[in-house]
């Protein structure tokens, strides 16, 4: 058993639902107990969809367990087919149904339905939502296209040779972070370099669209968490190259364009760059100087974390002090990035572990998911959301991509917004007794929510059991304690830690004002 307060991912059948909801003409029958229909709310409320998810549940209850749950499965499948007439039917189980083993997939295949029936294996006790989406999309693509795989050696005859090369956009889904607008932005980006979009899938695609996937020259794996298996298979079976760079951030977008250009042998120098971003200038303008070296902690899915780390360090001049992901399947990418920034990677789906790490690192900004917002709120650290899981406010009405050049504009605004503005930061440091602009007040541009400030101290100072902190209880002289309070609050935690570390190294028992400044000189800031 694993104690869980908040989980980063749902069970794998939620991933399967995300694929079904993304598409048209696909229906999912889920063998699940009464109550599991709560998942519909994710789509109708969080994403505000105006249609019910194309999902039929068996919703069995205790009284059915004694009887014929298998019969219930068959009736449900038949009724779902008769009512919705899907062109592809997917069959899966939720965690409880997995335990009673009715084999709904085998049952469905034996029913002689006149459409493809796709059985899904979704091991609910070992895998999670991201895996479920990835597996479902892969099975769907493979199931529909395996009969069309060209014999080895033969050139695929499906590739149409039009005047402009074509690309598939693979990976965007329902309930994906900003997928809706990323797709628009990437389409614009491709158009600017003379590339057409062939199929966008699964978001908005039909089963017929999936059959056209091999007609494209390349596949853009925009969300590897969803599409990497499918892309890999398409590459092997149809020889379609996969573009692996995810265009989030200015640098990554340029790399992405180059990678597409190389794969399609485009002369990119001849193409004017019609899309342009304000972000590089905003970041270079003097008002942004105070952003330099802001200490940032990044957590989320691997793709957004790796992209964010690059933006943070190369495009905004932040210092990445922590990096991690909840998606174990993509831990390698995050480990590599962590090595690049010289930090310890945090690979965990345990919310409490993330909380502990944030408390320990004292960042000035947290870039994370909905869960990190709770952590940041609790610890009084500014925070911006960069990755799923997200709540309703991160399915905005306005155009808000993360990818491409407009995405970079959005990211600049989003990340800088929670930070205190430069002048305010200076004034608070200079004059500390102002009754309104005291350092525990919310940044004034974020409104004066009656935050009682930091009166409740961050609770998550390393708990007992944290070996290192346990033994080093430093004594602070009262004047040193006073002096510490004069350090701006967003770096005070760091200063305290550095001073204590310095004192320990030097064998100092009681920290004085002198020790504080000695430590400051020693570590430089």
């Amino acid at each position, binding site marked *: 058993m*694993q*104690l*869980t307060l908040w989980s980063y991912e749902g069970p794998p059948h939620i991933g399967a639902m995300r694929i079904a909801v993304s598409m048209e003409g696909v229906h999912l029958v889920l063998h699940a107990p009464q109550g599991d*229909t709560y998942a519909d*709310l994710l789509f109708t409320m969080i994403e505000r969809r105006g249609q*019910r998810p194309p999902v039929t549940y*068996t919703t069995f*209850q205790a009284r059915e367990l004694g009887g014929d749950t298998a019969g219930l499965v068959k009736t449900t499948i038949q009724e779902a087919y008769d009512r919705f007439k899907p062109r592809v039917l997917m069959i899966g189980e939720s965690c409880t149904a997995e335990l009673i083993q009715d084999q709904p997939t085998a049952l469905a295949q034996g029913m002689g339905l006149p459409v493809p029936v796709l059985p899904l294996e979704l091991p609910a006790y070992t895998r999670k939502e991201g895996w479920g989406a990835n597996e479902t999309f892969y099975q769907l693509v493979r199931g529909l296209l395996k009969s069309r795989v060209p014999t080895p050696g033969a050139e695929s005859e499906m590739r149409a040779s039009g005047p402009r090369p074509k690309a598939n956009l693979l990976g965007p889904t329902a309930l994906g972070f900003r997928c809706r607008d990323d797709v628009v932005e990437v389409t614009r980006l491709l158009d600017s370099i003379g590339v057409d979009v062939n199929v966008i899938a699964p978001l908005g695609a039909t089963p017929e669209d999936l059959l056209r996937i091999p007609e494209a020259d390349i596949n853009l794996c925009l969300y590897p968490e969803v599409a990497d298996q499918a892309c890999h298979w398409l590459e092997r079976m149809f020889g379609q190259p996969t573009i692996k760079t995810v265009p989030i951030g200015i640098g990554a977008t340029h790399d992405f364009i180059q990678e597409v250009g190389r794969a399609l042998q485009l002369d990119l120098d001849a193409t004017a760059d019609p899309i342009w971003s304000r972000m590089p200038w905003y970041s270079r303008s003097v008002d942004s100087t105070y952003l330099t070296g802001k200490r940032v902690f990044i957590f989320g899915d691997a793709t957004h974390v790796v992209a964010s780390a690059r933006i943070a360090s190369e495009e905004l001049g932040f210092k990445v002090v922590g990096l991690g992901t909840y998606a174990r399947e993509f831990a390698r990418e995050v480990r590599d990035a962590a090595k690049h920034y010289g930090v310890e990677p945090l690979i965990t789906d345990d919310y409490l572990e993330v909380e502990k790490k944030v408390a320990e690192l004292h960042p000035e900004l947290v870039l994370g998911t909905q869960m990190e917002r709770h952590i940041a*709120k609790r610890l009084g650290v500014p925070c911006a959301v960069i990755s799923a899981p997200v709540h309703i406010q991160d399915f905005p009405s306005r155009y808000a991509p993360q990818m491409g050049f407009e995405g970079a504009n959005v990211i600049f605004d989003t990340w800088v917004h929670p930070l205190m503005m430069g002048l305010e930061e200076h004034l608070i440091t200079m004059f500390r007794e102002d009754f309104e602009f005291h350092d525990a007040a919310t940044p004034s541009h974020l409104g004066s929510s009656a935050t009682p400030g930091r009166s409740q101290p961050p609770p998550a100072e390393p708990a007992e059991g944290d070996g290192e902190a346990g033994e080093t209880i430093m004594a602070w002289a009262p004047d040193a304690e006073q002096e510490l309070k004069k350090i701006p609050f967003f770096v005070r935690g760091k200063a305290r830690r550095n001073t204590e570390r310095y004192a320990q190294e030097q064998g100092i028992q009681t920290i004085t004002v002198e020790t504080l400044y000695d430590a400051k000189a020693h570590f430089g800031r």
Partner: protein
Amino acid sequence: MSAVEAAAPDQVSVTCAGPEITRERGQRQVFCGLAGIVWLHRKIQDAFFLIVGSRTCAHLMQSAAGVMIFAEPRFATAILQERDLAGMADCNQELDRVAAEVLGRRPDIKTLFLVGSCPSEVIKLDLAKAAERLSDVYQGRVRVIDYSASGLETTFTQGEDACLKSLVPQMPQLPPESRSLLVVGTLPDVVEDQFARLFKDLGIGPVHFLPPRHATEFPPVGSGTSVLLAQPFVGETLRALVERGATLLKAPYPFGIEGTLAWLRAATDAWGISGETLESATAPAIARAEKALARQRELLAGKRISFLPDSQLEIPMARFLQRECGMELVEVATPFLDRQLMEAELPLLPQGLRLVEGQDVEHQLDRVRADRPDITVCGLGLANPLEAEGLCTKWSIELVFTPVHGFDQAADLAELFARPLVRGSLLKV
């Protein structure tokens, strides 16, 4: 599970008053009982709810609990792992470890609920035994109680019923010869205080509430206990109380002026208090409520309404909207109809009403589309899709999360139904 079968033999006379009931079976679009934790953990302040289940249960809770995730939650899930299912780990040892972790993190907790889910029920994990064992371990510090809120056994508010029922054996014995009034069902604090004041004015007492605000303050129960139900979904709890000697005061539920007055009258009758006393004690509140309700009635009168099943609140709500707000009832569906608990409500419904127990969601939606009511009361999985079809909806979960009982909330309750209509006429986009 059916309360019709479970009803005490002396209740058999509860038959055909009120409209005929149609039973429907099929796909059900409802929450499981775990959702009850979302409000129970706010009500019982020193309790912690530990769900023993799967990642799905954890996901449900955090999706349902919405913004409350900002606070340090008083609920969590012990997610079963492959090792637990394969028998490689001793589930009981695992549970002990997780419980220790929870109680270590929250030393202020006085009652720990082990909440069963579909997976834990299917693998037949004996939480009752675990609760007993853990109670021994933490004796004097934490009381450990178990109940099941799985979707297999409970629908939405029935989770509260299961929780309250698990508290009944913990309640101390009311000394013989003494009497008390016990109000059963979660009420918002402000409503609870209003009722407490009213009972005091009427000279009824002592009055206790179940659930209590603190799980350490259990009200006593015994043969002198008279029970008033504040919520229509606490049938199992009632029967457990009756087993301990309590008597049910039959009454409609305290929604609207009529319901609240009749509910109070059940208590005054039992206490032998005169009608004049009741009248004079309630007159100011009733006058106020009538005035406030008149405004909402103007908006609601003549409008047609359908209820999809959700919380068992449907029947008393429909009664209030029809009799006090002048609405026309098209269809009233409830997930579960406990005749004993609805005895005083059913005769107040119009004969010939389409009253449905259970659900087959696709067929029910077909009927909604054919009826085109002015308002459809439904869950959040259906609300936006129906709005997109041009049907005005009132999402039903709000009825459980808003103070709606009593005289002073009668207009607020009506306003909940009027609001979507008002909004519909306001918007020009």
